[in-house]
């Protein structure tokens, strides 16, 4: 029997580490690479930082949340927010260096009063891009993320002095059952 609610945990604690250097075969680099079974309420993928990846990221987030019966409007808000974070990484992270990967990791968490929410972390290994915004696409993108989410944090990863990490925490929604 599948539990309707996955165990609560912070995605940084439970998701596998980001892309490791050895994995450069074509299928791994350019396919989308689930990290852990989505049946555990987790999403994990790494995509090349190229414009074509953005629709793949949206489709993966949609499929993940639809599987968990996420309410349609909140689902689309999460897709919008993840889209902005991933787009910014694709456009800006690797401007001055060879293109790398963008990682998207998500977890469904229980909240007080038996609700649930998702936390999605979008991370790259390129240039650190602080939030004060001077270019126009990011100027509109960050308010859009903030409007769609309960919390948006943009920072540098703790473990490495490169890259940008965006943590998106969704609004809480009523409990729902996993669609089998």
């Amino acid at each position, binding site marked *: 029997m599948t539990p309707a609610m996955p165990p609560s945990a912070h995605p940084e604690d439970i998701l596998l580490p980001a892309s490791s250097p050895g994995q450069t075969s074509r299928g791994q680099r350019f396919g989308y690479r689930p990290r852990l079974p989505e049946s555990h309420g987790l999403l994990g993928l790494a995509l090349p930082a190229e*414009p*074509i990846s*953005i*629709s793949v990221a*949206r489709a993966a987030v949609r499929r993940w949340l639809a599987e968990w019966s996420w309410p349609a*409007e909140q689902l*689309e*808000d999460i*897709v*919008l927010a993840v*889209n*902005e974070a991933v*787009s910014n990484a*694709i*456009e800006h992270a690797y401007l001055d260096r060879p293109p790398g990967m963008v990682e998207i990791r998500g977890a469904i968490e229980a909240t007080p009063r038996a609700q649930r929410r998702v936390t999605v972390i979008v991370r790259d290994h390129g240039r650190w891009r602080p939030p004060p915004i001077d270019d*126009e*696409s990011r100027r*509109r*993108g960050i*308010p*859009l993320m903030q*409007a*769609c989410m309960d919390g948006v944090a943009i920072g540098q990863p703790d473990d490495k002095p490169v890259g940008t990490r965006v943590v998106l925490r969704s609004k809480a929604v009523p409990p729902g059952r996993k669609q089998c």
Partner: protein
Amino acid sequence: MQESWDGGPESDLGGGPGPADEQLVRIETARRAYSAGMALVVTVTGEIDLLTIDRLRAAVAAGFEDLRDGEILVIDLTPVTFMDSRGLQALVDATQAAQQQREPLRIVVDHTRPVVRPIQVTGLDNVLALFNTVEDAVHAPL
């Protein structure tokens, strides 16, 4: 009277698109007659994002080029299934270009959430000339 052509970058603006962005978005420009007057309607179908935004910008630029005296330029977004902040910025830029060139530009959105949601949460419903149908857009006084 109706002429139709693809206003995408492959027409004469260079930067030919690959097949992927053509699958995600289709942009068609058509000259249409209404009782209130003529309109050049740029209809966008599909997803507006990082990959497809240049095609939208090129189609709108081509629309301004081809606009004849007395015509209204309409961007019809009702078949759009996804729009991000880049799409919002393209609409703001088109609106500013229209004001500078003194050309009438109107944007059509219906009540479907993929377009309305990003416009509303960023407050751009107060900035953009939005209408529910192409007919409404053409009939509205200048």
